[in-house]
């Protein structure tokens, strides 16, 4: 069933249709939240909260809107709120996360290593740059969609992406060319 059909049924109150949408978008939401919050546990909480809020609001979702953009808007707002209002008990867990991920993961070690290394590099970006980079290069959104989601103007977003790329370039070159 297409997204549009699922959304139409979810708007009418079909819980199964909404659950199917949640399954479909869970991974991308989790990816964004993990990079924004730099902590898996917090990210999981925020993603759950996002899907529940979207579920409560879906009756007001207008047909013709793109569901993914609407969902990501809620998610990005939730990430920003969580990042500022939660007392950060820890600064960065990137290294620990990488170690745990490697230990738990059964995929080829090279795949896990690359992802950990790239995560660490992206995590070092300041929040707005990190957000812009993730939305563009990880989620593949265009600038118009990013503008809707973040509330920033398109030229501001292009500048953020450029700055993110400038900061990442030497780190990524080191990862990929060693």
């Amino acid at each position, binding site marked *: 069933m297409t997204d549009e059909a699922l959304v139409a049924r979810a708007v009418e109150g079909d819980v199964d249709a909404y659950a199917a949408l949640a399954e479909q978008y869970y991974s991308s939401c989790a990816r964004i939240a993990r990079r924004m919050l730099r902590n898996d546990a917090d990210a999981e909480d925020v993603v759950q909260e996002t899907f529940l809020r979207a579920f409560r609001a879906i009756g*007001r979702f207008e047909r013709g809107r793109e569901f993914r*953009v609407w969902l990501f808007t809620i998610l990005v*707002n939730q990430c*920003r*709120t969580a990042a500022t209002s939660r007392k950060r008990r820890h600064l960065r867990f990137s290294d620990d996360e990488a170690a745990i991920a490697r230990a738990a993961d059964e995929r080829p070690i090279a795949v896990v290593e690359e992802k950990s290394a790239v995560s660490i590099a992206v995590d070092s970006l300041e929040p707005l740059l990190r957000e812009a980079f993730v939305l563009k290069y990880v989620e593949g959104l265009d600038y118009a969609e990013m503008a809707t989601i*973040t*509330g920033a103007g398109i030229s501001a977003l292009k500048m953020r992406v450029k700055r993110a790329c400038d900061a990442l370039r030497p780190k990524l070159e080191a990862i990929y060319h060693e």
Partner: protein
Amino acid sequence: MKGLRTVVLSSLIIAFASLAAGAQEARLRRSLDAETLANVTKLTDSARAESLPVDPLIGVALEGAQRHAPGGRIVGAVRDYLKALRGSRSALGNDAAPSEIVSGAGALLSGVSPDALRRIRDAATRRPLTVSLVVLADLIARGVPKDTAARAIETAARANARDDDYSALRRYVEQDILAGASPAAAAMLRVRSITGGPP
């Protein structure tokens, strides 16, 4: 006869209020360990001496007890709240009603500056502030930047907004945010529907 009825009713209200206050304090004694109770009592005594609202402080201590928070955290919360109540009364003036002082404290805890609070008070002239300040804190909790939210409320106050208008503003902004609008844009846009013009 009406004068006597007013006196009787007032006495009943005062008696009931004391009974209720006594009940809350009894709950406090049952819920907190001795050290926490002593520290909280010092703070509520200060509040009482300064004629600041005491019930919200007791409420926070009881909430902490029911949520099984450690004593130190409870005392810290009560202390921070007392500080915010003082700041609120200082910004809103000595004639502010208790519920206005409490809502003002909430706004300060949300990060609104005392100056912004004073501007809202001045803009509202003699209309009560409780509802407008509750809405201000709610907007900030939903992601509207604090300066934008304070400006929106001040603008609405200047336009003689009533409690109904503030509550409508809150509902619309919440819906807009859930529908994908940026919180700041939602707040600034919706306040125009009250004022009828640009903020």
